[in-house]
């Protein structure tokens, strides 16, 4: 779909590493160039036309994000540098002030490092406990398993909507319902979810959501922190400085700005935010329902073609997202990636920043194909043809 919009796809290259980052359509690149070329002023500063235009574009991007995730209020949308920063702000700015020693946070072993390491530090510093929701035989999270993992001390469930290795879609709405019945907060890592399917934070009823622009046709260095307004009001800014204060006459009389500006200290990635707004317009035109439906068709096609290959061990046959993870028998994942690279096919090899998944899946490293709407059935044919010939893989892996 829409391949002509992506300058890189005019080259002889097959890009299957969309879980890491997506390609950028020309309209997003043009939008950012337009800012840098024609109105490169700062936000919230000047009483002149250029700066006014920047404010308009910047705030329009915020409105586009609000509408895209169906948040209720504009001030619930905070621009950050990406999912990682958003999650760190949620953990260190909100939960660090709320939780007490022995309070429990539930995560899973398939979370990305960004949804583990901030919690680990809080555990070391404050004595909170990190517990793991057991995964089922498909490495899925089920409500039953969550129920079993809940205790009277559970205060937070912090999980990815779609994991970056297994690609399973978690039942977020049901998890939120269960959590809220038990006075538990839900933090949703949406990095792999928001780019691929329609999302409605009000319907899901998540308390916090984090995601990145660059995985959804936007620029790098921009992300979103969504929080319910009444919670976000209590999120303490970790970074203080320009643009987020009203007055600071002395240490005891510091007045900070209202949301969301309070949480956006310093000059933001203005071109990135404006470019992100354009990316959302672009995705809206295609339709998130269409994107998700098409990715599932691609995935099914790939799985059906890989299944007969005896030397391919697919880790996540059943998953409902565009992520397919596998290993080639007796070939290290990185060597498979190098082999495919010789034919201009980009895939990811490694542990995908989900190091503790090993305890559940039993393998350290895998090859990952992560699909997006601009991938094609023909590209999958090319991949499968190369993976079909085991002798060729071994011969050409170095």
């Amino acid at each position, binding site marked *: 779909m829409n391949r002509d919009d992506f300058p890189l796809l005019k080259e002889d290259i097959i890009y299957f590493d969309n879980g890491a980052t997506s390609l950028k359509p020309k309209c997003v690149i043009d939008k950012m160039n337009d800012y840098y070329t024609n109105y490169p002023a700062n936000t919230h500063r000047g009483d002149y036309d250029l700066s006014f235009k920047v404010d308009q574009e910047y705030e329009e991007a915020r409105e586009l994000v609000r509408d895209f995730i169906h948040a209720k209020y504009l001030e619930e949308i905070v621009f950050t540098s990406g999912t990682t920063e958003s999650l760190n702000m949620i953990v260190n700015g909100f939960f660090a002030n709320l939780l007490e020693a022995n309070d429990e946070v539930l995560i899973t072993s398939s979370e990305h490092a960004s949804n583990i390491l901030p919690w680990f530090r809080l555990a070391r510093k404050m004595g909170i406990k990190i517990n793991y929701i057991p995964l089922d035989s498909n490495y899925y999270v089920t409500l039953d398993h969550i129920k079993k993992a809940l205790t009277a001390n559970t205060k937070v469930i912090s999980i990815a909507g779609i994991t970056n290795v297994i690609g399973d879609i978690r039942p977020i709405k049901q998890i939120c319902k269960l959590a809220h019945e038990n006075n538990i907060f839900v933090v949703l890592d949406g990095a792999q979810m928001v780019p691929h399917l329609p999302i409605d934070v009000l319907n899901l009823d998540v308390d916090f959501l984090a995601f990145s622009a660059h995985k959804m046709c936007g620029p790098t260095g921009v992300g979103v922190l969504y929080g319910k307004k009444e919670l976000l009001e209590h999120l303490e800014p970790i970074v203080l400085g320009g643009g987020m204060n009203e007055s600071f006459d002395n240490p005891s009389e510091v007045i900070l700005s209202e949301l969301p500006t309070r949480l956006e200290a310093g000059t933001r990635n203005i071109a990135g935010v404006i470019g992100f707004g354009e990316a959302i317009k672009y995705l809206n035109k295609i339709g998130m329902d269409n994107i998700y439906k098409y990715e599932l068709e691609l995935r099914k096609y790939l799985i059906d073609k890989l299944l007969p290959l005896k030397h391919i061990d697919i880790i996540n046959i059943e998953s409902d997202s565009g992520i397919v993870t596998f290993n080639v028998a007796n070939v290290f994942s*990185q060597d498979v990636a190098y082999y495919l690279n010789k034919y201009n096919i980009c895939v990811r090899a490694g542990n995908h920043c989900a190091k503790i998944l090993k305890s559940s899946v039993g393998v350290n490293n895998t090859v990952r194909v992560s699909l997006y709407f601009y991938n094609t059935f023909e590209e999958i044919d090319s991949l499968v043809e190369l993976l079909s010939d085991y002798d060729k893989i071994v011969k050409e892996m*170095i």
Partner: protein
Amino acid sequence: MDKEQSREIIMENYLHPQNRDLPHDGYDAINTRNESCIDNINLYIKWNEDILEDIVFDGEACAVSISSTSIMIKNLIGKKAKEALEYIKEFYHMTNGDDFNQELLGDACCYLEVSKQGNRKVCANLPLKGIEKAILEKIK
């Protein structure tokens, strides 16, 4: 050394690596891994004064890293610390695309072409980074 000979040496050392073993008593351990967080090798070194008397390794890594570890072990055992550092320096010269001492490196010249591919230089250098660190620690 042509491309096919290089490949044969690499594959032979990958499939049948020298001294892939668990350490015995009296070995110093050092871990070496690369930034892409995949290759992960533990080296175990037995010193006899300033001579590398024995080196064994275990771990998980790609064909280039495993084979490079094997070749390095084979070529460094019996060398004095300073001779080993000289060898490592020449290896880096080769993988950096600079002039290097072919005679000294011997079969390790098989990485001349491979190290020009993508990130493979890092894989080839990986074991040498580890042993270099261990040697510098020893002689400081």
